[in-house]
């Protein structure tokens, strides 16, 4: 099985261990990568209706987390390994300089939901999701909004909307998007520590999650729990949307408080689309 060398994440660690104030999106091929998470005020932008919170029954008791993580590692059973074996189909997406991370994170999480089911992996277009929500303006947002769009409208294949242009907003593309409808997703708690517990449990159950991180002003798709001491002392790997040339093959490691999302959405069931 093609596993990565154990020191693979040293570079990501060095990069992300900086203080939040030092965080600067990299310049890749002359393009400064974008962010795009809008800080959300729940009083003026409350939760969308109809989204179910992660059930308490699915929370892994804190005492069991280390054991289950050890088992997941022994079984090579996280999304990280699935990505490594996907022959490039789950490579990191690339938002380029646009402030549309919030659509890329949820779209990638939906692709992970396809992959864990064993379905053919369809590379989906986050451009379409963001464009249809924002009227093709380059504007910030958050993961819940894009997830709700994926639940209601779906996303077309990437090649049907390969860049950020309203010329792709056609009836044909809308119909194709419906074929990749997200069917179920959970949202995280309003309480930060419980939200972190939900995220950890969801990773251990083999699912992805959309992590909105105010300290970075960025949203990313989470792909595994790496280590756990407590809900405030943990390491999480995320699949970023700055292409494969950033971080470690597109992956970034978040540590301790920086790994605690300010908002969390967890897509889990997607239409089994044909190839």
């Amino acid at each position, binding site marked *: 099985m093609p596993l990565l060398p154990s020191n693979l994440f040293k570079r990501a660690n060095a990069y992300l261990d900086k203080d939040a104030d030092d965080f600067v999106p990299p310049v890749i091929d002359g393009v400064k990568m974008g962010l795009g998470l809008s800080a959300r005020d729940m009083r003026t932008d409350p939760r969308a209706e109809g989204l179910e919170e992660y059930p308490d029954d699915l929370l892994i008791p804190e005492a*069991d987390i280390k054991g289950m993580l050890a088992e997941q590692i022994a079984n090579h059973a*996280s999304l990280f390994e*699935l990505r490594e074996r996907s022959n490039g189909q789950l490579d990191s997406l690339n938002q380029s300089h646009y402030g549309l991370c919030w659509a890329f994170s949820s779209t990638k999480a939906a692709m992970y939901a396809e992959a864990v089911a064993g379905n053919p992996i369809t590379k989906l277009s986050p451009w379409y999701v963001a464009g249809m929500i924002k009227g093709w303006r380059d504007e910030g947002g958050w993961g819940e909004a894009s997830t709700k769009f994926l639940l209601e409208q779906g996303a077309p294949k990437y090649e049907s909307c390969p860049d950020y242009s309203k010329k792709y907003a056609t009836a044909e593309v809308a119909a194709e998007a419906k074929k990749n409808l997200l069917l179920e997703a959970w949202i995280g708690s309003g309480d930060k520590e419980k939200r972190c517990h939900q995220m950890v449990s969801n990773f251990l159950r083999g699912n992805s999650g959309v992590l909105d991180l105010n300290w970075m002003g960025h949203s990313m798709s989470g792909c595994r729990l790496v280590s756990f001491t407590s809900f405030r002392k943990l390491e999480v790997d995320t699949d970023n949307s700055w292409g494969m040339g950033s971080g470690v093959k597109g992956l970034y490691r978040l540590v301790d408080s920086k790994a605690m999302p300010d908002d969390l959405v967890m897509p889990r069931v997607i239409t089994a689309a044909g190839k």
Partner: protein
Amino acid sequence: MRLINKVIVAGFIAIALIHFGPHGGTMPFPGVSPIDHKGLCVLVNYETNNLPQEYVSVVNSIQSGDLSVWLDSKCAKLEDGTTAHRVWDENVDLTQQPKFWQDAFAKRQQPPAIMISNGRKGFSGPLPKDKAEVQALLEKYAR
């Protein structure tokens, strides 16, 4: 057809319906292929919204871990480019999937359950909680 033959045929049909109806019985039914496709095919159905914790490890392994790697190497290669193993939530939409998957899913057992077929015979029953038990079951029908 003589009456006795009709009774025997009706009996077999009744047994098959009991064993393979949606969320029907839980016993394996050797001698019949539960998935109508050649080669090794495996279908796990579960409910993401209430999967008991004791099943998490084995489901993880089938979805993305060691068992997934094993299944990739042994299962039938399909026209869509995947190998013939799926792990589907009870509420998945399969309208775009080939008929043999739709038919198999319609015959699924109460979740979490597993269906294994090698085109000649197979198994349809509860998903074991133990990874080694699942592996043994898979190897039995992969031969």
